């Protein structure tokens, strides 16, 4: 029983390290080869966990090999467009100038239902609003709406808007976040002054966000 526990722990650590080495891409939308590697790793890891007759290294070696080849392949595809097309495929335009390319749709084995589902996921319920739609290599649909249906932006309205940096978390659940402080170029004593001014102590704050322009927002702890 203890052996099973320890083997699981070791393989869990190896898989976590592998996913970290492969990078954040692996955790987001997967390319075909990345999906294959992820499925394979999860399957291989279960073999030595289930069967203690299988040496642990027979699970670790394939995982490390897959992980290494995935990294090498991603570097090679970064350098070579041809290899990238070969391994990951290319994008396909399935709606062009508001017209559905039915051949492209059939080539991708995309049904009308799939297309409508993807449009709805992009908050489009009327096909006539779409100017261009591109099927990405990850299977996701990227959509460009007709200009008529685009929301008004300050640019289209001819307004000038001062750029503003997004807020960062300064205090999270009573604890000061140093990364947030350095993002806002704020010292601890300045933070203390702001909290004093607002009548709080750090231990009274559930969440505090702030921009580099000192535009802050405080959520106190509920007692």
């Amino acid at each position, binding site marked *: 029983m203890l052996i099973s526990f320890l083997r699981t722990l070791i393989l869990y650590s190896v898989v976590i390290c592998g996913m970290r*080495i*492969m*990078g954040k891409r692996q955790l987001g939308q997967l390319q075909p080869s990345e999906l294959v590697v992820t499925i394979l790793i999860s399957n291989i890891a279960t073999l030595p966990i289930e069967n203690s*007759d*299988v*040496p642990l*290294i*027979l699970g670790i*070696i394939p995982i*490390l*090999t897959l*992980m*290494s*080849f995935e*990294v*090498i392949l991603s*570097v090679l595809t970064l350098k070579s467009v041809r290899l990238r097309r070969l391994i990951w495929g290319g994008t396909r335009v399935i709606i062009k100038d508001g017209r559905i390319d039915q051949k492209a749709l059939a080539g991708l084995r995309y049904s009308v239902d799939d297309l409508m589902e993807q449009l709805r996921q992009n908050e489009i319920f009327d096909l006539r609003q779409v100017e261009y739609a591109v099927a990405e290599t990850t299977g996701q649909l990227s959509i460009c709406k007709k200009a008529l249906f685009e929301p008004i932006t300050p640019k289209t309205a001819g307004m000038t808007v001062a750029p503003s940096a997004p807020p960062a978390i300064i205090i999270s659940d009573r604890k000061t976040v140093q990364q947030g402080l350095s993002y806002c170029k704020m010292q601890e004593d300045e933070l203390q002054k702001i909290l004093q001014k607002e009548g709080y102590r750090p231990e009274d704050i559930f969440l505090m966000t702030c921009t580099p322009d000192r535009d802050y927002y405080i959520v106190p702890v509920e007692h």
Partner: protein
Amino acid sequence: MKRLYPAIILIVLILGLSVFTQLQCRRFYQEGTQLLSELMQQAKSGHLEEAAALAGQFYDHWDQTKNAMVWYIRHEPLERITDISSRLMYLAIYDDRAQLLAQTNELMVCVRELYDNELPLLRNLV
């Protein structure tokens, strides 16, 4: 790019480890087969005391090798060799020549299969 070099190093290490295990298997196969052949010769010519000594020698040799092999070979074929090799010495001591020859032959087959199954041959890949 910073991940490329650790990945290449890892591949080289894995290949190095694979070659090392291959050599370890080959060495055991060669030494083990030689010992077992001698054992068979002694048994066939009726020198069972010498055969018992060789069986003991093989068991000691296997005992050391097994501890390294459990790291990378499935345990089942290793346990089979342990089972058979533990009997040989007593078969020789108590004069059961027929069983001794049969079990030694079986052990030789097991040792050869252990080595063959580790070779990167097409039959092992398919």
